[in-house]
């Protein structure tokens, strides 16, 4: 499969009154055609900023992408002109946002909002666009879609609104869909429906997906590959099976331990990770997870570990082999 997206050493900072927030500190990943990448990590670890930086949607000021490249089909998104990147957004790479309540414009009809990418990128008239919009809304499971084009966002339930949002993001047949915590604001039962829907749509339309979540449980059945983020770094990345079977980084271990599992002992205590997420004001010289890590060594405090290959196509940024408890050579 051809490589669609290649992000290298992406670094994004926010200049705030108290100093500089190092939100993303040299993140690299790639995405192949049709592949689904899951990005997990606790709130504030830089997941949104990573993908928003790619599409240059970071509010600036205060934000700035200070280093790195993001190649989409060989062209660096970060070096494109404003006009060029605008034509990538919503047509080639599109986004679904977390909160379907606030992510729609309350004063425009659903029809107009979903039709907008078609009008912008494919030059369709509103009438042509509405036909396609109705089809798309059917596809994501909005009953009587045609009759609802002139409804406003507040006339839909949260789950329905997220379906509409998905329809809006897919209406131009993008090759990459970025879903930034698309289920976080929804009820658990509806979460499952949305995940199911995206799976179906992926099989039908074949787009690649970057699915961001702070919930390892949601993503297990969806992703091909996983990237775990912590404090603005990717600290572990691996094919999904390998990550769940052989979690390597102490933080990933912690995340998995805090997850209820059906396949093992059901009565096992759920653990939480002690301590607080890092403050991103200073770029750490030690491992950012060290203050919360139970495996912490002298080395961890002296040098921030890079991603090391710990298995076939499996990388983790940790000096310690968590299986043996010994430091990696």
């Amino acid at each position, binding site marked *: 499969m051809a490589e669609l997206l290649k992000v290298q050493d992406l670094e994004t900072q926010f200049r705030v009154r108290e100093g500089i927030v190092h939100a993303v500190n040299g993140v690299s990943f790639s995405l192949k055609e049709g592949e689904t990448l899951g990005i997990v990590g606790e709130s504030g670890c830089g997941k949104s900023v990573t993908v928003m930086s790619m599409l240059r949607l970071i509010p600036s000021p205060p934000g700035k992408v200070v280093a790195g490249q993001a190649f989409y089909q060989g062209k660096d998104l970060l070096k494109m002109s*404003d006009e060029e990147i605008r034509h990538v957004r919503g047509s080639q790479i599109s986004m679904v946002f977390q909160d379907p309540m606030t992510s729609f414009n309350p004063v425009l009809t659903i029809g107009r909002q979903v039709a907008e990418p078609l009008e*912008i990128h494919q030059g369709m008239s509103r009438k042509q666009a509405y036909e396609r919009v109705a089809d798309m809304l059917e596809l994501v499971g909005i009953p009587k879609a045609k009759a609802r084009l002139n409804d406003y966002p507040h006339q839909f339930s949260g789950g329905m609104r997220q379906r509409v949002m998905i329809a809006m993001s897919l209406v131009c047949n993008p090759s990459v869909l970025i879903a930034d915590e698309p289920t976080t604001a929804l009820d658990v039962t509806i979460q499952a429906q949305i995940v199911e829907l995206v799976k179906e749509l992926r099989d039908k339309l074949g787009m690649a997906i970057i699915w961001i979540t702070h919930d390892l449980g949601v993503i297990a059945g969806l992703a091909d590959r996983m990237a775990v983020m912590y404090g603005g770094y990717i600290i572990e990345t691996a094919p999904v099976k390998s990550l769940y079977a052989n979690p390597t980084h102490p933080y990933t271990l912690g995340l998995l331990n805090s997850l209820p599992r059906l396949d093992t002992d059901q009565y096992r205590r759920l653990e939480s990770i002690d301590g607080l997420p890092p403050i991103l004001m200073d770029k750490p010289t030690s491992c950012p997870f060290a203050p919360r890590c139970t495996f912490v060594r002298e080395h961890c405090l002296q040098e921030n570990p890079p991603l090391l290959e710990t298995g076939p196509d499996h990388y983790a940024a940790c000096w310690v082999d968590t299986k043996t408890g010994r430091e990696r050579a």
Partner: protein
Amino acid sequence: MGRFIIRRLLYMVVVILVVSFITFGLMHAVPGGPFDAEKALPPDIIKNLEKRYHLDEPLVMQYLRYLNAVFIPQFSSEGLTGDVEDDSLVNIKITDTFWIKWMNFGPTFSSRSRTVNDIFRQQLPISVQLGLNALFVALILGIPLGIISALKQNTIFDYLSMSIAIFGVSVPVIVLGPLMIWIFAVTLKWVPATGWGAQPPYVLGVFPSDLGWKYWEKALMPSIALGLGSSAIIARLTRASLLQVIREDYIRTARAKGVKESMVIVRHALKNSMIPVVTILGPMIAALVTGTFVTELTFGIPGMGKYFVTSITNRDYPVIMGTILLYAVFLVVANLLVDIMYAFLDPRIRYD
């Protein structure tokens, strides 16, 4: 929506009644009467005058008499008599000898030959025109200034617009007016210093029939002088509101769809940012239309302001009652229009 409007109009009747009651009560509660002059009139003459205007009757009678004359349509065998006792705002001819007359606001104590309705027909439209012009000025200056300073936040444009806005709120008409007259009328001689360029008959009883330069050469300065303060308020509100709106999630969504930056503002941000602006339009219209006194005085405009103010110092009861009731109607109608506009801007608002 229809039901809502009807409900609000019924509610207006209640408001008017309450306002009439309170005004009537207050006006008679304050010491002094209409015929107290520095040189006291002979008691006989005062008696006669009081009798003529029914001021010798018990207050309740006077109040009911007033309500009857103003609110209850009267049947009459003759049309327009020219009699000051018998001047109604609405005169409907059924046959030559059968007329329905409604809203007789009574005579004014200050003139033997004029009625409150004369003031409504001749002076009030001028004040309403001035107030609405000022509102227009406030909107066409305030909204663009607000938008510019929001979009160019913390640049020279922002500071410039907001300086104009601060100038607008802090310089009162009584300073600005004479300054404008001195610059544009006396020095540059672009426009006349005083007067008003529209006469009755007015379209719909209010609006000038000719909106040419003859009208605007006199209307421009006072409208700007009166509207500038409000334009400043609107500019600041628009700026704050737009700055808030462009941080909303749906603006990010629009950008993520590839919407052009100019369209992000025009299509996605403006309508939302106008919602708080519309909210203050109701009180603002009321303030502008009823607050024309100083402007009229400064620019020598024969409007309502003088009558409104002097009627109170002179205890000219029918003029006090009439103007206050009319302003009350105006307020309720203005707020109703604002609510309708509100529903038009924001589909989440439904009145039913």
